[in-house]
């Protein structure tokens, strides 16, 4: 069943057409992969879906509801969380503060209480522990290395507990062994019902984890289907993977 869908999305920047009549459907409860060459519009599509940009035309639907013109906070309130290709964390706050920001609280009075409450702290530490950043809890997030910031972003998105997670290149700059653990966590969360849409270039990672893969090319969808099918599709090989999909050696 389609959970999140885009229909006929067009987005231009000056002379450049980033998204051209783009129509795609992402399945509920699945780990969806989104791949394609640099410049094919993947991040722009994420921006449009999460309210950071409005399309020139077209529609974005979530559970059948039109969310095309929603703002980032409305999108989040609907249950969609995302990470960014160039990590967006809060650099002047400490690592633990960053994670606590994502912990949701309801009600005005609750906002005025201390930010470090025991149950939230436990979740924050669990999340940090998973990505291995516990020892750095009190360091300003801006002093972390690039890969560590990526992990921090993953950690706080987990704490926010969205129903849908849009991950923009979660593997970039992340050590391979740690990446395996992230993959494991994604699968665990998926079993509890979280839907994923993952933009990635790391083919081994994508093929190993995704139930569905969509390929973008020059601003629109090229093909959608099971990983094995997509991986061997001649058009995809031509446009993106190169005729030899194995790593250069």
């Amino acid at each position: 069943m389609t959970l999140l869908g885009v229909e006929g999305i067009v987005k231009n920047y000056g002379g450049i057409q980033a998204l051209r009549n783009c129509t795609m459907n992402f399945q509920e409860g699945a780990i969806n992969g989104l791949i394609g060459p640099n410049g094919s519009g993947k991040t722009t599509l994420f921006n449009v879906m999460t309210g950071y940009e409005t399309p020139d035309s077209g529609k974005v639907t979530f559970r059948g509801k039109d969310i095309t013109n929603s703002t980032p906070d409305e999108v989040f309130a609907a249950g969609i969380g995302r990470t960014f290709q160039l990590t967006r964390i809060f650099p002047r706050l400490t690592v633990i503060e960053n994670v606590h920001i994502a912990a949701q609280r309801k009600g005005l009075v609750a906002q005025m209480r201390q930010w470090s409450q025991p149950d939230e702290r436990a979740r924050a530490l669990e999340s940090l522990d998973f990505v291995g950043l516990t020892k750095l809890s009190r360091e300003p997030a801006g002093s972390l290395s690039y890969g560590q910031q990526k992990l921090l972003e993953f950690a706080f998105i987990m704490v926010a507990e969205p129903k849908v997670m849009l991950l923009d290149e979660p593997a970039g700059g992340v050590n391979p062994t740690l990446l395996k653990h992230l993959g494991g966590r994604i699968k665990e969360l998926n079993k509890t019902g979280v839907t994923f849409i993952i933009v990635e270039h790391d083919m081994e990672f994508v093929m190993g984890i995704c139930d569905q893969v969509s390929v973008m090319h020059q601003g629109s969808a090229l093909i959608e289907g099971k990983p094995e099918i997509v991986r061997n599709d001649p058009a995809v090989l031509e446009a993106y993977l190169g005729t030899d999909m194995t790593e250069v050696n």
Partner: protein
Amino acid sequence: MLTLSGVFAGYGGGDILRGVDLTVEKGSITCVVGPNGAGKSTLLKVVSGLLAPRLGSVTFQGESIAGKSPQAILKGGIVQVMQARSLFPDLTVRENIELGAFLINDQKIVQQRFNEILDQFPMVKDRLKDKAGSLSGGQQRTVEFARALMLDPALVVLDEPSMGLEPKAAAAMYGYVRQMREQGRTVLLVEQNVRAGLGLATHGVVLEAGRVRLTGTGKEILENPQMKVLYLGGSTQQEDA
């Protein structure tokens, strides 16, 4: 060509590098791998002069470069391509590349180098007049490589050259790295795509918690069972699928 000895360095919050001893052979492609936070980018910054070591020595072609300014190190023949995108988005591709030769005053040399580089990176030729910000990730990386070579460096330092690039573009980058070696340059790179990086490299270095854990040929490190499990993503086959 390049030797680090007992190097301690950090950013004011404690040492990231805690006694690094490393030798980079002339004409090699040396790839540094390791967990996140090990100090790989910091190591590169010490080499290119963006960070002065607190202790220890760094020698390049026999001369000490520890603590020298980035300009002096550039003039000495070391150029780094940063991990993050570093082109000036509103300048054209040509302007970006020419800026690589900022330290050279002789315009004739600059133009000559520029033309040589265009031959090496044909893809750049078509996009010379375009604003650098309008290029795709792989194209920008290529321009960054071209720019780096304008100073004709003896040592090229690359921080995660294939990061964020699609497979085809990443393969092209590795092709350029081999090309640099063929030109007689030495390359020092950091790569999280360890299979590709160590496969490309002649020498490998495993860095962890600010120290060198292991050195050897790329192949040796890639196949070292302990390293595999600890830092390199487990086995290269789908054994544990």
